[in-house]
């Protein structure tokens, strides 16, 4: 076995590979970009090599630097993970040329599949059904799907509904492909909006054994990015499964494939299927296959790379596994990625990390981040994968939905809520989700009751927890001998402001026009809704309060009682007027000035005083010119404030005293 392996990747997949390496006693080597200097994958590797820079192009896509790193750290082999350089045959070749082992198929096999256009031709030749490349699209070919030839993970993909959009979409797809894969080649194929994405996991050794280790249904996708994956595929019957296996085997054998790979098919509603592509690497969603087979696919990759033989046949899958990908992006706002500090990252019931073991049921977390991590803009917004497995699909899906619904993820917006709703959706539950499912999945109608009750909980938690000071801190909160008015706390959500009115009484705290209140503490509040008690967990951070309950997770921003005000009123206050000479006027009537912008200079007692605009506005009147002698109180400039009445700007000598004038007068 290799004694040391470098993983040319980051995040959860780097950690996944390290996990197996550690189990096998292999020294682990990480590479890390500058933002990742303290990321988990870099921190837990035995050795790390810095890739200077921030963008993927400067770092994880730099084949030369990675090979140098492997050599410098004494690594014997390179594991590419997925994404980045994982399907770059030139990189694989360069690794081999550097005398290092390559955990993956041969560069020839990679390049055969690396071009999606070429691979389609190859597969068609081998008798595998394919969706033909549309060379010169016309009206009849619509809708079309643009794909990056070197791509994966949805990047570079575009659906084109109108021919007029084609040039623009092609350009965008090329740019995206270039940025993500270093290759701008794109092509078009017919777009089947209602098919199912079914893929077959393949493992092949160099001795001719080819395994097909179950299939995966990855139809729940947003913008061609997989979100939920499961095995076995719920709508694939045994005859179709065998035909898919056979086609996958043909594909692998056609190119002399070696290692772990995935053959992707689009399965139509009529049961016809088409070869889409073959991914010559480990898939993101490989854990579902591990969960039902008990295999360690990374370990098998390493063993195959070393030249080991696979046993004659793979283990039979048992039960069902489903994976949800947790992304730092907002499904309600066009999947806009979100950045920020991950304040809390807590998913209950996790029994294992990066491995599935042999238990008949369980919950696995593969994550590249932990609470406190900064989620930046540079890389993929996927935070983690959560995998549940159980004897039946229904149990596995329920377990996953349950765990995610109780997860506490604070600090960045995620698709957590959408995942839970999909996993509990009747269409999904019945196995009816095709690739168009998520595009039409309704975004969550903000449950006003959930927001309202969460705000009540946050207000009450703050109310009882707000005073822990030495000054009268032991007295009942909000105590009044003459209670006169309810207290108020307000919060804003993305689209609303919620006011909560409450009063303290001898019996505790009560909400005005609100629910019955149970026990209240600084981080937990019980409220009754229709006689049912709900518990709300309240967590406060610098910028927001998060409230989690069975109703959902709500982010609330407390409204300050004293709104932050802009610059003080016109003229400021208590400015000592002084006599002097105007030495320079920097503005003219009609000029628009910003608050604080110097308007004129006044010389007095051999010092030059800058007179800045007290507020933004337009110069309405200039009553002084250079050389004027002015007395205290003289009006110099009249400033018309935007949206306000005219304001007289008098001599406002702030601390903006400039001394350069002294040199001139000396």
């Amino acid at each position, binding site marked *: 076995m290799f004694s040391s392996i470098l993983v040319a990747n980051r995040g959860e997949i780097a950690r996944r590979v390290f996990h197996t390496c550690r189990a096998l006693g292999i020294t682990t080597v990480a590479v890390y970009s500058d933002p990742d200097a303290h990321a988990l994958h870099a921190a837990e590797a035995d050795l790390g090599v810095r890739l200077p820079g921030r963008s993927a192009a400067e770092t994880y896509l730099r084949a030369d630097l990675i090979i140098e790193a492997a050599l410098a750290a004494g690594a014997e082999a390179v594991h590419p993970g997925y994404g980045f350089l994982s399907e770059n045959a030139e990189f694989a070749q360069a690794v081999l040329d550097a005398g290092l082992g390559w955990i993956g198929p041969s560069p020839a096999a990679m390049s055969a599949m690396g071009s999606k256009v070429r691979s389609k031709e190859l597969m068609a030749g081998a008798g595998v059904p394919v969706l033909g490349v549309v060379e010169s699209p016309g009206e009849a070919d619509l809708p079309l799907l643009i794909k990056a030839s070197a791509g994966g993970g949805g990047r570079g993909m575009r659906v084109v509904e109108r021919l007029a959009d084609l040039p623009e979409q092609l350009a965008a797809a090329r740019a995206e492909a270039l940025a993500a894969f270093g290759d701008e080649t794109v092509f078009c194929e017919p777009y089947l909006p209602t098919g199912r994405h079914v893929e077959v996991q393949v493992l092949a050794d160099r001795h001719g054994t080819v395994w097909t280790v179950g299939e995966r249904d990855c139809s729940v996708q947003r913008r061609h990015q997989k979100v939920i994956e499961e095995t076995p595929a719920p709508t694939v019957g045994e005859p179709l499964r065998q035909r898919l296996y056979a086609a996958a085997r043909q594909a692998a054998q056609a190119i002399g494939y070696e290692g772990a790979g995935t053959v992707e098919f689009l399965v139509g509603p009529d049961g016809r299927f088409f070869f889409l592509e073959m991914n010559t690497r480990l898939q993101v969603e490989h854990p579902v296959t591990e969960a039902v087979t008990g295999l360690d696919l990374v370990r098998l990759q390493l063993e195959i790379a070393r030249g080991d033989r696979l046993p004659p046949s793979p283990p039979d899958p048992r039960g069902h596994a489903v994976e949800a990908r947790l992304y730092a992006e907002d499904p309600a706002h066009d999947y806009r990625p979100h950045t920020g500090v991950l304040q809390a990252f807590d998913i209950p019931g996790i029994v294992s990390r990066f491995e599935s073991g042999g238990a008949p049921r369980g919950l696995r977390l593969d994550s590249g981040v932990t609470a406190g991590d900064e989620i930046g803009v540079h890389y993929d917004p996927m935070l983690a994968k959560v995998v549940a497995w159980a004897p039946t699909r229904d149990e596995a899906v329920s377990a996953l939905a349950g765990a995610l619904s109780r997860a506490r993820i604070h600090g960045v917006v995620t698709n957590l809520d959408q995942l839970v709703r999909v996993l509990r959706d009747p269409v999904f539950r019945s196995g009816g989700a095709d690739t168009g499912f998520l595009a039409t999945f309704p975004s969550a109608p903000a449950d006003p009751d959930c927001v309202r009750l969460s705000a009540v909980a946050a207000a009450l938690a*703050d*109310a*009882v927890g*707000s*005073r822990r*000071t*030495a*000054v*009268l801190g*032991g*007295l*009942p*909160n*909000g*105590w*009044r*001998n*003459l209670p*006169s*008015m309810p*207290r108020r*706390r307000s919060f804003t959500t993305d689209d609303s402001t919620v006011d909560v009115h409450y009063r*303290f009484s*001898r019996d505790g705290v009560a909400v005005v026009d609100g629910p019955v209140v149970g026990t209240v503490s600084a981080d937990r509040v019980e409220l009754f809704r229709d006689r049912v008690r709900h518990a709300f967990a309240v967590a406060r951070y610098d910028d927001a309060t998060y409230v989690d309950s069975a109703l959902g997770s709500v982010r609330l921003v407390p409204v300050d*009682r*004293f*709104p932050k*005000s802009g610059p*003080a*009123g*016109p*003229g*400021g*206050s*208590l*400015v000592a007027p002084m006599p002097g000479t105007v030495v320079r006027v920097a503005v003219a009537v009609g000029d628009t000035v910003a608050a604080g912008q110097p308007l004129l200079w006044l010389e007095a007692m051999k010092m030059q005083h800058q007179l800045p605009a007290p507020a933004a506005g337009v110069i309405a009147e200039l009553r002084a010119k250079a050389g004027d002698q002015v007395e205290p109180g003289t009006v110099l400039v009249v400033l018309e404030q935007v949206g306000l009445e005219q304001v007289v700007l*008098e001599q406002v000598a702030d601390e903006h005293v400039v001394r350069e004038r002294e040199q001139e007068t000396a």
Partner: protein
Amino acid sequence: MKSTVDAGSREFAENREAMLAKLAELDAEHAKALAGGGPKYVDRHRKRGKLLARERIELLLDEDAPFLELSPLAAYGSDYPVGASVVTGIGVVSDTECVIIANDPTVRGGASNPWTLRKTLRALEIARQNRLPVLNLVESGGADLQNQKEIFIPGGQVFRDLTRLSAAGVPTVAIVFGNSTAGGAYIPGMSDHVVMIEQRSQVFLAGPPLVKMATGEEADEEELGGARMHARVSGLADHYARDEIEAVGLGRRIVRSLRWKKQGPTPGPVTPPKLAEEELLGIVPPDLRTPFDPREVIARVVDGSEFDEFKPEYGGSLVTGWATVHGFPVGILANARGVLFSAESQKATQFIQLANQSRTPLIFLHNTTGYMVGTEYEQGGIIKHGAMMINAVSNSTVPHISVLMGASYGAGHYGMCGRAYEPRFLFAWPSAKSAVMGGAQLAGVLSLVNRQAAAATGRPFDEDADAVVRAMVENQIEAESLPMVLSGMLYDDGVIDPRDTRTVLGLCLSVVICEKAAGPYGVFRM
């Protein structure tokens, strides 16, 4: 402490019912103070975009901090509205205990009447005695001119007190929300820190009409005393706010920047009483001739219901002992069976001296009918012993707090640190009564004197007329002894719900423990 109170007993239920009835009457009077000038003036005030006095206070206070409103019944029983057009109290602003004085402009424009003055002076006295920074939320049309003779001459004390506070190193802040004219102008004038509000504050010695009268000048209000003028020309305003909310925020910032160091010891850990405060409603019998055990009260007020009794076997009509309330060590003197004998007087004297030795604040729980009378007791030196106790109380230098639970009659009121003995705070329960003696006794004494006078002059004594007079006198005295009447006259700092006793004491103890520290003079306003 063990309790023998049976909360399920009929007696308890009757006591409770009587107390709740009195609390309902009290609430009705408090509601008058809270209503300010009534819906019409409150609405008018709001329509001007202004906050009410209590809203200003609520905004000024730290969120969810406690606030003890003082003298809420001031002017009760007088011709002036209950509350006396000003709100005063103690609360926490920027983690600092402060005295807050806020004019209620919905009541006759916030104009001062004699009770406004007394209530304000009492608040300033509390600030001075306990070294609490003062925040004046000013909006007042000045003195009620028709009653100027009752206000003008004594009213000067407000400004003297403000600057003497400053001289004593106690900061003073004025936030001017509206009018602050004539004498009122000296409130910002005498304060260390002044906030004014754009287009709202108007501070001048004389408004345009008076200026016209005095000099013939046609003065413009804003030029004469507007916020901008004071912020930029006269220098009377240190801070210029655009609206009330910003002004209150500035007030909070000023207090924060005082970096006020609270003097005195920090309290120890706080444990609630083991017995329910709620049961305080059922302890005092409606008829004060029925005695009750003050230990039942103490057990529901002090930390952990723990009370170390001093001399329990001696002078049993007065309970004395040590406890902590909200973590503050205290000595407690509480009347048990009404009457103070020589032994009780001597016990009290010794206990007060001990408290002074250990610098422990004292709490007096009143339920006394006075010192024992009669030949035996006079011969036994009851005057000497009573004098001893009054001497000890008068010259004790630890802070005192009095709570009138029931009767507080005769010299007993003095010995137990009545108002004239300057306790730092004095509160009454709705069940309290205070007078030179009970109404029946006083009427009886008058009747006896009349009867003797009739006998001496040989006139026939009219029994029927006597009965009428006795009833009238008794009713008058009973009415005058009621806590709301006494509170209206500022003879206490408020009538409190018995269940709030522990909280009120905790708050007051926190402020009375501040030892003195002084500077050479007050800040001169430039």
